């Protein structure tokens, strides 16, 4: 297997982008990444794009070829493939691109992730997202993701004494980080009190425990590591890539407070990188709801199971803590255009490892981890990256 590096990144602002179309967003992120990598169309061997539900959000399927077209590459007839795995679609696209280079088939691959979610109303967006749960056993009976994650949260509270205040502190921390991310949907701090008092969505998750409905796109250019220096002085190597699956429905799991898919994907990535959780300097984790970040830091092995809430209290995961988590603002503050999220996490890792993250730069960042989840944990992808 060949080593693979990121040689270019591109991001649109995340938010309610009423005046930008689906194709404008993907073209903006893609062209930024291509310019950043200083490559040309003829250099590109393949395109992969992650999107969860472009068909239901903007009535557009068949977006692999569309991405090639809006990038101005139709005449080059580049192989273009769309990848879907709910909210993990973006990192699945990264992994497909990664595998195609590692295998020796491709040298340079552009990966995109996109979702434009605001063109439908809030309740329809909730319904569309619920299609990533088990339709027969969950969505059909009215379960939505806030409700499903609320069940995880109440069980976590029951088992381990996690408090609503600890959940709220996750949102406060991620908003504090989002302040320093010019691409974030929310660039303003929020108070603990406002999170605690926010409109209840599904106990214990209030409105501010939930990531927003967002529009946005992200893109990275992957390259065989041996050729990366040809394009950039600062290639960032993917040293571990793991993926795992689990039951779609929450009730099928061994333990509803543990995402076994995270444990298995992380194990695969750590093994490949020959690292342990202690070696990770910072991480982007999938905080679609505040409880999800607490589960993630436990299941990734950073914190003992059940101690995630205490870790938040002890400020281990703040910018100044021993393991900064979600320096970008996470899904909560940066925004969560579902198909773009996994790619945007790789963009954040790359910017941190290039030492280009500005005010949110993690000091001496050497090794970063990205963790992207589909549904309530049926799909998980973990990547570990290091500066070359």
């Amino acid at each position, binding site marked *: 297997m060949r080593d693979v590096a990121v040689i270019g990144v591109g991001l649109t602002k995340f938010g309610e982008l009423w*005046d930008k179309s689906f194709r404008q967003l993907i073209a903006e992120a893609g062209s930024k990444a291509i310019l950043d990598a200083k490559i040309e169309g003829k250099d590109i061997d393949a395109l992969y794009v992650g999107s969860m539900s472009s068909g239901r959000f903007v009535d557009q399927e068949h977006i692999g070829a569309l991405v090639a077209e809006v990038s101005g590459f139709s005449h080059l007839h580049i192989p273009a493939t769309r990848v879907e795995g709910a909210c993990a679609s973006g990192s699945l696209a990264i992994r497909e691109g990664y595998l195609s280079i590692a295998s020796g088939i491709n040298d340079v691959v552009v990966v995109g992730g996109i979702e434009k979610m605001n063109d439908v109303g809030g309740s329809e967006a909730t319904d569309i997202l619920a299609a990533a749960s088990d339709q027969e056993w969950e969505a059909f009976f009215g379960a939505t993701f806030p409700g499903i994650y609320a069940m995880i949260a109440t069980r976590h509270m029951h088992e381990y004494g996690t408090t609503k205040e600890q959940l709220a502190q996750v949102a406060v921390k991620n908003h504090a980080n989002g302040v320093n991310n010019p691409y974030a949907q929310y660039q303003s701090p929020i108070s603990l009190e406002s999170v605690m008092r926010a409109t209840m969505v599904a106990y214990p998750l209030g409105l501010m425990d939930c990531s927003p409905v967002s529009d946005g796109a992200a893109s990275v250019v992957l390259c065989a590591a041996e050729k990366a220096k040809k394009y950039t002085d600062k290639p960032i190597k993917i040293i571990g890539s793991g993926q795992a699956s689990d039951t779609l429905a929450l009730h099928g799991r061994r333990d509803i407070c543990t995402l076994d898919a995270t444990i298995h994907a992380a194990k695969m990535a750590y093994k490949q990188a020959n690292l342990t959780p202690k070696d990770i300097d910072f991480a982007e984790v999938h905080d679609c709801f505040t409880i999800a970040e607490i589960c993630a830091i436990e299941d990734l092995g950073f914190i003992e199971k059940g101690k995630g809430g205490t870790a938040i209290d002890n400020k281990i995961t703040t910018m100044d803590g021993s393991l900064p988590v979600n320096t970008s603002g996470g899904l909560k503050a940066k925004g969560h255009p579902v198909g773009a999220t996994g790619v945007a996490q790789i963009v954040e890792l790359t910017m941190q490892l290039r030492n280009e993250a500005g005010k949110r730069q993690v000091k001496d960042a050497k090794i970063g981890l990205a963790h992207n989840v589909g549904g309530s944990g049926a799909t998980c992808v973990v990547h570990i990256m290091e500066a070359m």
Partner: protein
Amino acid sequence: MEELGIVSYGAHIPRYRIKAEVIAKVWGKDGDAISRGLGIFEKSVPSVDQDTATIAVEAIRHALKRCTINPQEIGAIYVGSESHPYAVKPTGTIVGEAIGATPDLMVADYEFACKAGTAAIQTCFGFVKAGMIKYGVAIGADTSQAAPGDALEYSASAGGAAFIIGKTNVIATINHTLSYTTDTPDFWRRAEMKYPSHGGRFTGEPAYFKHIMNCANNLMTTACTKPQDYTYAIFHQPNGKFPVNVAKKLGFTMDQVKQGLMVPYIGNTYSGASMIGLASVLDVAKPGDRIFMTSYGSGAGSDGFDMTVTENIKRLARQKAPSVAELVADKEYVDYGVYSKMTNLLFLE
């Protein structure tokens, strides 16, 4: 400069009110949080025998009480509403007959969501300016609808205001008026649908804020004015937050806005909203005061008005009709059951 503008005005607000917390309780919501979020504490409720026509008639009768105009000198009546009692058959003819202005009269009903009434002011302004009529009546009135449980239920209310436009004894000259209009589907009600639909958060930045900001800035450019030049500023008020935010963004202060901000205690009277705000300002205005108003109608557009109060306002018998403050204060609370009956949520017809 020729004086052309508002000659008299009147408002009407149904006296029944329901508190936001009462509605919230029915739906299992936190009334305090909703009131804080929307900036609305209670809203007016039309009685079973009140509709847009009766509200329009009450408002213009109040306007006529304040002046000495012979209704036969009124050459046009335009009624703006999104809740005309009939789908086909005008509200304006009912108003014309009720005040004795028929039959030598131009009449039409207008609809442009919440700004149909200010569009009527512009029409009357044009006719008077052209010399085609002596007086024109522009009315904005609504008994707005909201589906039970919808976010709009906390705001959709009833009320209206009427303005007589002419060149004689003008109390406030209309110095400039213009509009900013695009096709933006943020809020709509299709034919034969009982309740409106809306685009949720899309009704904010790309709809309300974009149109009002552009209209307001274009108006100040045309009039060569700045926010500080105005004594009062009135903005369309679908809730208590939007008008305050847009005022801040444009550089107006709360001191300029508060006299025309009625929504916290009567809700959103739709076509009546900015016009009741203007009536409230005229209740207290003094000669020389300059008034800025931008309405907003979903769909979408904003009408802007730059006005100056004249010496004539001292001679207008303002006290002969109830002020907006008096109409707001004259109230009786109803519970959700009575509210359901009055707004026909029970489909009794």
